[in-house]
C-alpha cells in the first residue's frame, strides 16, 4: 500500500465549476500537508501548505486536512482554464523535509 494515495484522473470540468481533489494517507505521524501544482513541462510549485488538521484558504483555493480520517482535500472555486495542471498532494512528518507525494491528478478546465 502506498503511503499517500491520489486518484490520477484525468479530471475534466467546465470553467467556473468547483473542483475537488483528494488524497488519503496511511501514516498517522504525518503532520505537514501540501499541495503542489505542476504545469506541463515545468517543475512543481507549492500552492498550499497546512499544518495538522483544519482548513486554509487562499483566494479561490481551500486546503482541508482531516487527520481523523487521514484525508487531504483541495477545493478550487470558480475554476479557470489557467488552473489546468497536475496537482500533487504531499506530506511529511514533524521535523523532516523528506516529502511523500501522491501520484498527482491531471486537471483540465474547459472554457
Amino acid at each position, binding site marked *: 500500500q502506498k503511503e499517500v494515495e*491520489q486518484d*490520477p484522473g484525468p479530471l475534466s470540468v467546465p470553467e467556473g465549476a468547483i473542483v475537488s481533489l483528494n488524497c488519503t494517507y496511511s501514516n498517522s505521524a504525518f503532520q*505537514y*500537508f*501540501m499541495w503542489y501544482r505542476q504545469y506541463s*513541462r*515545468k*517543475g*512543481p*510549485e*507549492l500552492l498550499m*501548505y497546512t*499544518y495538522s488538521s483544519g482548513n486554509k484558504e487562499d483566494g479561490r483555493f481551500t486546503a482541508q486536512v482531516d487527520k481523523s480520517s487521514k484525508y487531504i482535500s483541495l477545493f478550487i472555486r470558480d475554476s479557470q482554464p489557467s488552473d489546468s495542471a497536475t496537482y*500533487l498532494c*504531499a*506530506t*511529511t512528518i514533524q*521535523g*523532516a*523535509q*523528506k*516529502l511523500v*507525494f*501522491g*501520484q*498527482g491528478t491531471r486537471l483540465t478546465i474547459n472554457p
Partner: protein
Amino acid sequence: DVKVTQSSRYLVKRTGEKVFLECVQDMDHENMFWYRQDPGLGLRLIYFSYDVKMKEKGDIPEGYSVSREKKERFSLILESASTNQTSMYLCASGSGLGGELFFGEGSRLTVL
C-alpha cells in the same frame, strides 16, 4: 526569485553510458533532493542531502549515485544508464523543516 536550475532539459543517451545531471540552487538552502517522475507513479525520491558531502538514500536509489561538493550544487549520476531509467528527473531544494521545496524545471532523460 528562488531559482533551481537543472543544466539539461532534454537528454538522449545510449544504454551503458554514464550520465550526469546537474542541479544548482541560488538560495543557500541546506537541503537538496533528486526525484524521478513517471506517469501513474508520481514523484519518487532517489537521493537527498542535508549538507555538503552528505547524502542519504531515498526510496529508489538503485542504479544512481550523487555528489554534493558545494552547498549550491547537487549532481545525480547514472553510472551505466539503462532503458528503465528513462524518466523525468526533478531536482529540488529547501531550507529546513516542513514541506516547502523549490523545484527545477526537470530533465527529461531518454535511454535508448
